[in-house]
């Protein structure tokens, strides 16, 4: 009833074009008595003029008229109406099918035959009025949809900027990294991160969230924060993965997760640690043309509870110039005009296509692009390629430094002791580094400090608490035995302690300071000779302490040889701390 009131009874403005005077009178009478407003024309030309002038909502048109006939008038009226639906009803006593067909061809919507009948005319007008109104509401809906789409694109653009503010500071621009990713890829659920580690080397991350649009993008923000935040603080890849999984599992609803691969590229030691959970196989491309497959070994992030999640990585040695390639499933799922998918076989074809490891990225990208040419790819593609490089390469890429407020602690000391099983489970370095980073200006030396604290802690743990002889590391076979022994002993550890004392004093001008790092373990201690040997050692073993010695102004053994004290003197502005050993520092020895 309400629709009838709205649709059926309101008056319309109707144009009648009919050359017969008496017929016109009859139509006029029928329509005005039904409440409509009537505009009259006696031929086609008048009809078109009246249409422009009066903008009627419906037209009754005699097919055969002088000057301009009804067919031509209909064509012009339809063209003038544009997107508006103006129904044209042909008034006709035409009876041959061909003439009727040509009425429809020029845009006629219906016929009314003579004699005119008011009941039929009312029914036809009402039917067209409903059609008009439906058309109008469809158009409004379309305009609204268009508007909403515009707004959504605008919002996505804003959201992307917010996301870029969190994720932009990566080192994706580094010389040894190449990648393919759409600027709006985050809304396809793809994420790509790279960040230099304080200890040297790079963390890389390729992720692919389930779904599309905002739900896919929403998890990317915390993920980026965890990745960049924890990497900058020196956390290890496994800690970061665990935290990512925990966070994703906590915030994402069941059924939404993130297929991901993460790489810890260690330039110093020339190896890559790789974790793959749900991404297609990545590849390590060797100089000799061979390749190692980096298969997905884990469930994607955000599915398993923390106690069942495994952050175990595969470790691969890499020579300088060898490449590591990762891609999201968008590559395999790219579709060509025939609806075929690019597929794993085509990827393998590209990999087997010869050339050097550094060519593969361009060749793969080219192959996918030409395969999917002219097709709106279903899932955007994300490809990451990273080459093992000389350590010096990343020095140009500084991790982003937050502006110093100058308000942090300058004069302080602390002791932190890890005991018993905790030694096997917890890496204290990120926490300690985090504390040091609060000293205004010291952040610039995070790389050095990370190395110093890590080496001293490992030295205390491995040689002091676990009593591993460093001589084991003298041969390559022993080197790997050393690490398996380390794993085994850590698993069995019940007693022991490592205590780390940090003490910072500002220099009088407050343009730098002195950080004392003292690490003591529960072991039996070094002989002084062992230390000096260790410090001088250039082989596979003992590199750790030699490094500390290089980075610090003063390193000395104290206690019964179970304690090492290192002094790091720094000056605001980079590059001065390493310049030689401080005389003052030496005098304490």
């Amino acid at each position, binding site marked *: 009833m309400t629709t009838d009131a709205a649709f059926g009874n309101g008056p319309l403005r109707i144009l009648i074009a009919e050359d017969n005077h008496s017929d016109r009178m009859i139509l006029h009478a029928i329509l005005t008595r039904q409440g409509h407003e009537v505009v009259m024309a006696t031929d086609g030309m008048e009809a078109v003029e009246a249409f422009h002038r009066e903008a009627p909502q419906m037209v009754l048109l005699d097919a*055969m008229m002088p000057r301009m006939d009804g067919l031509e008038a209909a064509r012009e009226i339809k063209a003038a109406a544009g997107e508006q639906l103006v129904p044209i009803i042909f008034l006709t006593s035409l009876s041959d099918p061909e003439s009727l067909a040509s009425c429809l061809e020029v845009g006629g919507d219906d016929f009314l035959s003579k004699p005119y009948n*008011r009941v039929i005319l009312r029914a036809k007008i009402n039917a067209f009025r409903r059609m008009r109104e439906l058309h109008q509401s469809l158009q409004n809906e379309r305009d609204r949809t268009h508007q909403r789409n515009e707004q959504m694109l605008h919002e996505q653009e804003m959201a992307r900027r917010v996301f870029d503010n969190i994720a932009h500071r990566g080192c994706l621009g580094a010389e040894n990294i190449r990648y393919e990713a759409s600027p709006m890829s985050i809304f396809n659920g793809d994420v790509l991160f790279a960040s230099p580690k304080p200890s040297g080397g790079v963390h890389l991350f390729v992720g692919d969230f389930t779904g599309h649009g905002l739900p896919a993008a929403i998890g990317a923000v915390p993920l980026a924060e965890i990745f960049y935040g924890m990497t900058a603080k020196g956390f290890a890849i496994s800690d970061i993965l665990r935290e990512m999984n925990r966070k994703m599992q906590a915030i994402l609803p069941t059924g939404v997760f993130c297929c991901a691969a993460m790489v810890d590229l260690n330039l110093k030691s020339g190896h890559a640690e790789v974790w793959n959970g749900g991404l297609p196989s990545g590849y390590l491309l060797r100089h000799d043309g061979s390749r190692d497959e980096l298969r997905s070994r884990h469930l994607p992030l955000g599915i398993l509870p923390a106690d069942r999640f495994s952050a175990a990585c595969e470790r691969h040695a890499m020579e300088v110039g060898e490449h590591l390639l990762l891609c999201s499933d968008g590559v395999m799922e790219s579709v060509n005009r025939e609806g075929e998918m690019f597929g794993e076989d085509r990827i393998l074809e590209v990999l087997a296509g010869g050339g050097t490891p550094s060519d593969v990225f361009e060749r793969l990208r080219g192959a996918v692009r030409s395969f999917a040419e002219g097709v709106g790819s279903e899932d955007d593609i994300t490809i990451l390629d990273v080459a093992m490089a000389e350590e010096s390469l990343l020095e140009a890429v500084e991790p982003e430094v937050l502006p110093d407020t100058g308000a942090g602690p300058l004069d302080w000391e602390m002791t932190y002791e890890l005991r018993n099983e905790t030694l096997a489970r917890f890496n204290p370095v990120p926490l300690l580094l985090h504390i040091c980073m609060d000293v205004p200006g010291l952040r610039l030396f995070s790389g050095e400090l990370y190395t110093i604290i890590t080496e001293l802690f490992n030295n205390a743990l491995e040689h002091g608490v676990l009593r591993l002889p460093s001589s084991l590391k003298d041969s390559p076979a022993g080197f790997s035995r050393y690490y398996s022994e380390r794993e085994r002993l850590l698993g069995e550890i019940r007693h022991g302690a490592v205590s780390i004392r940090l003490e910072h004093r500002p220099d009088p001008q407050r343009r730098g300071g002195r950080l004392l790092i003292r690490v003591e373990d529960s072991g039996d201690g070094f002989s002084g000779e062992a230390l000096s040997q260790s410090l001088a050692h250039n082989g596979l073993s003992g590199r750790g302490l030699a490094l500390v010695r290089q980075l610090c102004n003063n390193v000395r053994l104290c206690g019964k040889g179970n304690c090492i004290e290192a002094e790091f003197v720094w000056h605001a502005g980079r590059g001065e701390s390493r310049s030689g050993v401080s005389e003052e520092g030496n005098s304490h020895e």
Partner: protein
Amino acid sequence: MSDQQHLDHEALTELRDVMEDEFNILINTFLQDADERLRQLSEAARAEDADSFRKVAHSFKGSCINIGAPILAECCFAAEQAGREDNLSQSGQQVAAIEEELATVSEQLRRYVRE
């Protein structure tokens, strides 16, 4: 002449309903137009203009149907067909037939209006 009625009384009743007090004006308008149509038809026949003959006959036929004059409409239709076939050989008789029927219709309509 067929048995058919010259006027369709049902149609006229309906028209009277629709037109209310304009009914008489409608009938007068029809009759005036009809005379004009008849003149145009004779003209087209004399000029041997088949297309014009067809168009006028077609239009005339339409108003005859609406007014309720079926026999007159049929006469017009025959003329329209001849014009369409470009055959004006019978046009003289056709115009005569229309003229004769129109006279009858006209007379009956005037009587109907007076009733």
